[in-house]
């Protein structure tokens, strides 16, 4: 692992450890304030908050180890560090692709499902996913007709086939 990647991971560990510390303290507080059901004549040793509290304490200890270790390695400098421009460019590209994947997937799973006919929603999703990643922004759309046509054909065939196979052959409920 290179020095840069190493320090970047240390910085990420620093942020993760803070989130985990806050998270585990929340678990401990919520477990402590959880009813002990004494009025129902229940043994306090079997109270519902015992195990979550214990897990919260273990998580807190592990998060503190991570925190101390990242501090020692200078993880707190994450906000000051500047990355190399080529690496930053590559990282930006990956981030854009992941964000786009996430966006279309979320629109499909939360926006379409249950609100739109399953086959139509799935068809639109597959078509837009393929177009989004296969169309080259620099070139005129006229020259990319093939991509659109093939994406459309794949979207129609795939959505109909999935609906047919799952609903008719395997008797599965579709959203």
């Amino acid at each position, binding site marked *: 692992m290179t020095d840069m990647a190493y320090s970047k991971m240390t910085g990420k560990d620093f942020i993760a450890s803070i989130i985990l510390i806050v998270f585990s303290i929340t678990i401990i507080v919520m477990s402590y304030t959880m009813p002990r059901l004494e009025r129902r004549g229940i043994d306090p040793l079997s109270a519902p908050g015992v195990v979550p509290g214990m897990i919260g304490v273990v998580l807190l200890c592990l998060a503190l180890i991570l925190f101390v270790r990242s501090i020692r390695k200078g993880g707190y400098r994450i906000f000051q560090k500047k990355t190399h421009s080529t690496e930053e460019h590559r990282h930006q590209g990956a981030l854009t692709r992941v964000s786009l994947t996430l966006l279309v997937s979320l629109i499909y*799973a939360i926006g379409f499902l249950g609100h739109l006919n399953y086959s139509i929603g799935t068809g639109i999703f597959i078509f837009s996913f393929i177009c989004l990643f296969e169309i080259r922004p620099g070139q005129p759309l006229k020259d990319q007709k093939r991509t659109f046509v093939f994406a459309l054909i794949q979207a129609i065939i795939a959505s109909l086939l999935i609906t047919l196979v799952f609903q008719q052959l395997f008797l599965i409920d579709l959203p």
Partner: protein
Amino acid sequence: MFEGLNYFWESLLGFMNVRTIFDVFWSTQLGIIVGMLPGLTATMGVALMTTLTFHMAPDNAILILICMYIGAIYGGGRSAILLNIPGTPANAATAMDGYPLAMKGEAGRAIGISTTGSFLGSIIGMIMLAFFTPLLGNFALNFQSFEFFWLAVFGIVISGNLTAPKDPVKGWISGFLGLFIALIGMEGIHGFVRFSFGNTNLSGGINLIPAMVGAFGFAEILSMMKFQHVNVVKSKIERVIPRLRDIFKFRKTIIRSGLIGTLIGAIPGVGEDIAAWVSYDFAKRGSKKPDEFGKGSVEGLIASETGNNAAVAGAVIPVLSLGIPGSAPAAVLLAAMFIHGVRPGPLIMIESPDFVYKVVAMVFLATCAMFVLGLSMVKYVVKILQVPRTKLMPIIFTLCVIGSFAIQSRIFDVRVMIFFGILGFVMLEMEYPVAPMILGLILGNMLDTNFRRALVISEGEILPFISRPICIVLISFIVLTLVSKTQWFTTVTARVTEKITSYFKEDS
């Protein structure tokens, strides 16, 4: 022993009908394709198949799942050899020597060797499954709440340790996070709803299958889409049938890798990928030509493929005998068994001993199908690898959606899948292993109910937790696992080893 053999033959004969054989072949072939395609893992395949086989008879459904599991772990080797991209994490070690062999123009030979290695590994695993499941099951009958509590802790600790070798702390965080997530919803002793914030869906708890489809399916899609290009296969495939001398020459490596693979597979939540790496490492250490490893060594390829397929049967051993999965796909298998009314665990050898041998027969059938399919139709099947991922990923995502929705018909489960997908992706990016979290999700309930029940039984006494013989053994294992990566432990063991070696040298 003979009773077991009898059960095995009876089960095997019971499966000998056209419909079942057809099911075995199509599901194994589908498994090989799923394993081959980067972005589709064995876990995802088994989870999706659980949904598809929901309405089938339990025996048929579980048979199909096992075929999918074995097929997928084997199939991942194809893309590792041809693309240098492991189809499933279990095949990462395969790429080390498989791809260099393909680059030398020996792709067919590499596929043939990996098929035979996988077949033999699976057979060794199957024999150990038949032998050790009853033994472990009978031993586990001595377990009470105290032991089950420590067993759950041990599972998390060792899984975290082995799946995050660089930084076990991250593995343990992942495991304990999983344990916490398992506690969301109604608890098993008093019916009190925890951490649901008034949400009725959350009060029912987090279902394992949507969580796993998200963590191993959607997270994988996001990871795959991160990269701009993936090279398409262009390797020529000639003779696939392996040469007997290739296999016979490395018989010791095969047996050793098979045994190691099964053993690692049987450790809770560790899985096939670690089994393959450990087998590979041992083969390298024991090899006469360790320099060839990583440059197209047949021995290295055979070791990793034997190890990962042996781990499949190994991972089923704790599923049947303890109700704890040995790997992520085995966790789905465990959930599927519960869905179909089978209750694996220590009582299985008393309630339904025939089921254990039925599973052994299923593994045998799947292994034979894998061998036949692995050596035939290779040229045509690998063409699937040429499908660009921009066309494949949206279809995989729709399958993720169906896989998480179908069992309970709830949109909430689709959201759970998405949440775990994002969480899994972030965890992968930050070098946290996902497998301990999923194991935690399974063991959470066991840890919770057994700890509280044990406290009530002992009237608040902590002593039984640390004084019962099996508890002492488990605690020792936990402590050993916790300290095994510390500098202090490494220095002490090195000094002790040095002293022992010098003592024997002086003696001789």
